[in-house]
Structure formats: structure tokens, C-alpha cells
């Protein structure tokens, strides 16, 4: 191990009342030994770890509640339906929606965005119509729009960002016109950490007569989401980035839009009556939930919301902000660290490159010291192109991360420097 260049300064000790050690105890995986080191998990932007509260909920569900939902006349089906619909109520509260029917369970953000593109997009888009997508989007908020644009003859236009990784609002305003039907923007950029001014951007889009689809995958773990305040038309998020199981997420849509939209997938559950002369469809949200849903993980999603509320979303955000400030402060001491994403308002993500060490090599060297980060293009190739870089390294934080883990990351970076010296 190289010399320890950084000691945790006392002034950086967490000022809030979060008991991080107590929280860490709820995540058994954080005690795993990786290549002879205790795990320092800094890849939460890719997927967070799961607290016991969530895994025990899954176990309890399968042990005492499982059957198919909305179908059986028997007790277990009642229990499963109750658990599933109760999770929907929790999810509704999590994004502060007005009505539970406005919450559709999906596999994750990607499916939520594809659902809007397929159903709303195919219904509304005419040849020549425009879809605005920001330069900092994850591929899952670019490609569904390209696919639907191709089929409807509409056009995808890029809203550019500046070198700090912020959407250029003047350009956005200029791009909006009466052909703009849809604006697709991320709440928090996964590759940069930028928090976008969604509320203002929604207002501007509405003034132009467009609907706004928000990718909240990276926002959900860090920010208290309020769809009523934002006034967005659709918002999608993934459970697995916010302590819930994989394979579950939600799509929020304004009731009057969802009610008017054609189905996304056909199957059981989403119908009212089927005959070979034609079928009629169920009311929302079931119209958009064809087939047996992911009941257990939806119930786990509810437990994850409760886990976050128990700590307090503002408390989580404050803790992560302190970690982010600390990591920036540490990085400032090195001239060979280049940071990507210097937006004024940032959450959860520290993206960087180290001169002379390619991000992949850095990722490997860190992994051998137990430090898990993400390296690569982060499914945001236009962002990589903007900064003229093939790959970056990204540390992303969750409620259980500590200053010590950040110190360990910088120690590991020091070792990489030596190795490639």
C-alpha cells in the first residue's frame, strides 16, 4: 500500500445526526471482503445495496403472502393483492402523486420511458413533430425517442449543455416551438451528477404546449420527489438504485394523460373484456400492467421507500452532499485529476479521469483494493463526446458511505499513480 496522502480532517466529520454505522449494520453486504479488503462500495449510481428491511420483506412475502394478484377468490390472493396495491399507495406517496392510479409498476426507468414513447409517442406524434432530449441523457432516455421518431416521422433534437455539465437554458427556450410535442430530460444526470431545474423547464415546455417526461432514476435515491410541485407529465424511476430490489420501478403519469393513452403491451390483467370481435381495456393503472406483475419486488419497493423515510430523505441528501463536498475537496489537491460535471447543483456523483491512467485500468486497480467504482461511458456516450473522453471513472454515493471510504479511494488512486508512474 502506498503512503496515506489524505487523513480525514476533523472539520469534514459529518455535521448531521445520521448514525452511519447504525445504517451500515442494516446492509450485511458492506461487510464483504473483496480481494482481501473490506468492500468500499462507491458504485451506487449503478445499483445500490439492499437493507435487511427490504430483503426480509421479500422473504416474508414469499413465506406468507404469495399468490397471483387480482384473480383468486382465496385468502393468499387477497393477501398478495393487498400487499401489491399497498406498495402502489406507498409509491404514490413517495413521488407525492395525487392518485394511486397514476402509478404504474414497471421493470425500471428504461421500461417506464419506453412505455411513454410507445404509448403516448405513437398516439401523439405526427411527421415533423419534435422531441427535445438533453445532451446529458442516459441512453435509455435517448434511444426510445429515436425509435418512435423513426416510426412516426418526428424529429429528435438535442438540448445542449455547457462545459460545467448544465443544460443551456437559453438554447432550450429557443428550441421550444409549436412543433415540440415532448421534452425528455433527466432530473439528475447519471454521468455528471447535475441536478436539472425541472420545475422551470416543465413550465417552459408547457408554455410551448409540450409534455415533459422526467428520468428520475438517479434523483430518486437523493431527492425528495414531488410530481405535483414539478408539474411534470411523466416521471420514471428504478427501485434498484434506491435500496429496492432489481426488476421493479414506477412510472408516474398524469391521470388524464394515462386515461387517454392506448395500451402499451397486451395480455392478461390489462383487459376488461376480450372477444375475437375486439377487446376493451381495463382502467389505469392496470391497462399498463399486462401479465402477472412483479409482485414481490413491488412489495420490496414499498419497503425501500419506508427505509428511506425512516432515515429521512433530506437527511440522506445532506449526508451525501457532505460526502460529495469532501470528495471534491480531496480531488482539488491533485493536479492530475480532472472532474467531469461541475454544475452548481449536483447530487451523488463524482466523475473524473486521472491523467496517464485509463479509467479501466484505474477501475481494476481500485477493485483490487476493495474499492468498487464504475468506469466506462456510463451509457451516456454523447456526454463522453462532449468532453472528448472515451471513458471516465465514477464514484457515486449512498446513505451508507463514509469519509473513510473516500480516503480509501484516494489511497487506491495513489497506488495506481505509482504503478503507472
Amino acid at each position, binding site marked *: 500500500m502506498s503512503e496515506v496522502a489524505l487523513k480525514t480532517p476533523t472539520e469534514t466529520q459529518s455535521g448531521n445526526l445520521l448514525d452511519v454505522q447504525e445504517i451500515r449494520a442494516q446492509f450485511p453486504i458492506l461487510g464483504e471482503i473483496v480481494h482481501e479488503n473490506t468492500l468500499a462500495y462507491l458504485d451506487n449510481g449503478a445499483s445500490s445495496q439492499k437493507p435487511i428491511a427490504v430483503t426480509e420483506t421479500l422473504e416474508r412475502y414469499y413465506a406468507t403472502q404469495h399468490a397471483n394478484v387480482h384473480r383468486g377468490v382465496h385468502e393468499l390472493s387477497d393477501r398478495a393483492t393487498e400487499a401489491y396495491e399497498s406498495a402502489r399507495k406507498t409509491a404514490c406517496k413517495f413521488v407525492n402523486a395525487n392518485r394511486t392510479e397514476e402509478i404504474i409498476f414497471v421493470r425500471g426507468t428504461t421500461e417506464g420511458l419506453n412505455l411513454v414513447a410507445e404509448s403516448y409517442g405513437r398516439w401523439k406524434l405526427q411527421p415533423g413533430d419534435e422531441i427535445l432530449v438533453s445532451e446529458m441523457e442516459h441512453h435509455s432516455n435517448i434511444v426510445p425517442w429515436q425509435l418512435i421518431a423513426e416510426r412516426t416521422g418526428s424529429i429528435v433534437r438535442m438540448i445542449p449543455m455547457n462545459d460545467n455539465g448544465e443544460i443551456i437554458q437559453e438554447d432550450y427556450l429557443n428550441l421550444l416551438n409549436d412543433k415540440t410535442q415532448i421534452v425528455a430530460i433527466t432530473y439528475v444526470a447519471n454521468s455528471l451528477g447535475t441536478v436539472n431545474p425541472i420545475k422551470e423547464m416543465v413550465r417552459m415546455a408547457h408554455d410551448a404546449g409540450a409534455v415533459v417526461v422526467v428520468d428520475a432514476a438517479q434523483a430518486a435515491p437523493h431527492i425528495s420527489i414531488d410530481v405535483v410541485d414539478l408539474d411534470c407529465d411523466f416521471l420514471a424511476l428504478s427501485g434498484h438504485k434506491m435500496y429496492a430490489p432489481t426488476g421493479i420501478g414506477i412510472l408516474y403519469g398524469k391521470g388524464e394523460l394515462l386515461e387517454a393513452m392506448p395500451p402499451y403491451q397486451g395480455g392478461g390483467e390489462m383487459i376488461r373484456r376480450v372477444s375475437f370481435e375486439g377487446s376493451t381495456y381495463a382502467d389505469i393503472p392496470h391497462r399498463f400492467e399486462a401479465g402477472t406483475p412483479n409482485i414481490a419486488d413491488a412489495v420490496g419497493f414499498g419497503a425501500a421507500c419506508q427505509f428511506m423515510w425512516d432515515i429521512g430523505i433530506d437527511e440522506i441528501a445532506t449526508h451525501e452532499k457532505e460526502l460529495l463536498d469532501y470528495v471534491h475537496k480531496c480531488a482539488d489537491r491533485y493536479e492530475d485529476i480532472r472532474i467531469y460535471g461541475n454544475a452548481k447543483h449536483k447530487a451523488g456523483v463524482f466523475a473524473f479521469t486521472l491523467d496517464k491512467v485509463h479509467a*479501466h485500468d484505474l477501475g481494476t486497480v481500485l477493485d*483490487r483494493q476493495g474499492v468498487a467504482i464504475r468506469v466506462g461511458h456510463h451509457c451516456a456516450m454523447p456526454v463522453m463526446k462532449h468532453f472528448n473522453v472515451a471513458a471516465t471513472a465514477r464514484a457515486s454515493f449512498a446513505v451508507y458511505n463514509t469519509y473513510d471510504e473516500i480516503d480509501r479511494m484516494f489511497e487506491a488512486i495513489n*497506488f495506481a499513480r505509482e*504503478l*503507472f508512474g
Partner: protein
Amino acid sequence: MMDDLKALYQEVIIDHSRNPRNFGALESANCSAEGVNPLCGDELTLQCWLDGNDVIQDVKFVGQGCAISIASASIMTEMLKGLKKSEAESLFEDFRARVTGLDEFRSADIGKLEVLSGVREFPTRVKCATLPWHTAIAAINRSEEQVTTE
């Protein structure tokens, strides 16, 4: 653990990644191929002059990637020159067996490529080492398709 890293990133590897040999365009090329690793964005273009007897007379590459992929490409180009197409293909099989740890029952002499054998301890990085080879094999077989690790 650190020994694994030191075995992977030997001085030779660092040197080849910093100062890749046969880096640039090949004027006399009569075949070429592109290789990409979509997961990490590594990409390289390899050009080759294959004579009438299927002997690799010259080979060069351009591209960008991690230390492993650039060093692997650099060392590979040094090894390929003068080899017949079939010899190149068989060397790749031996190399691939060595870096994937599937060479338990073969002990082929892979010469200078031995320096990359540390990759076997890093399964996620094997593709970095083999991408240049897949690209070279595609080039000498005049395959039109872009080579991808996925």
C-alpha cells in the same frame, strides 16, 4: 492481491501502452478491420499488408483504449509480422487459451505474449487483451463486419 496487479501491469505493458509500436496508418495495407468494445468505448483500427502467399508483411494500428488493450495491440503487431495467416490464427488460439486460463493441457510457446498472461487473474479484462487479436483475425480474413467484444 497487489502482486496480481504488479503482474498485470508489468513495466513492459506500461511501456507498450505509453509508446505503442506500429502505431499509425499503413500506406501499403490491403486489408483492415475495426474493433470496438461497446462496454468501455475502446476502439481500434488495424491495417495489414497480406502478400500473395498469405504472409503478413506489415501491420499497423490506431485507436484508443486502456493500457491492456493498447499494449496487447502493440505487442501483437510485433509478433504478427512475417507470420502466415494460419500461424497468426493458431498463435491467437494459444494466446486466448493462456489469458482465459483454458490452457491447462497446452503449453504452447507464446513468446513475448507471455507478458500479458497476468490478465487471467482479471476476468473482466480478458476482452481488453483479446480485442486487438479478434480485429487482426477479421482483417486477415477480410471480414467486413466490425468486430465487437459483445
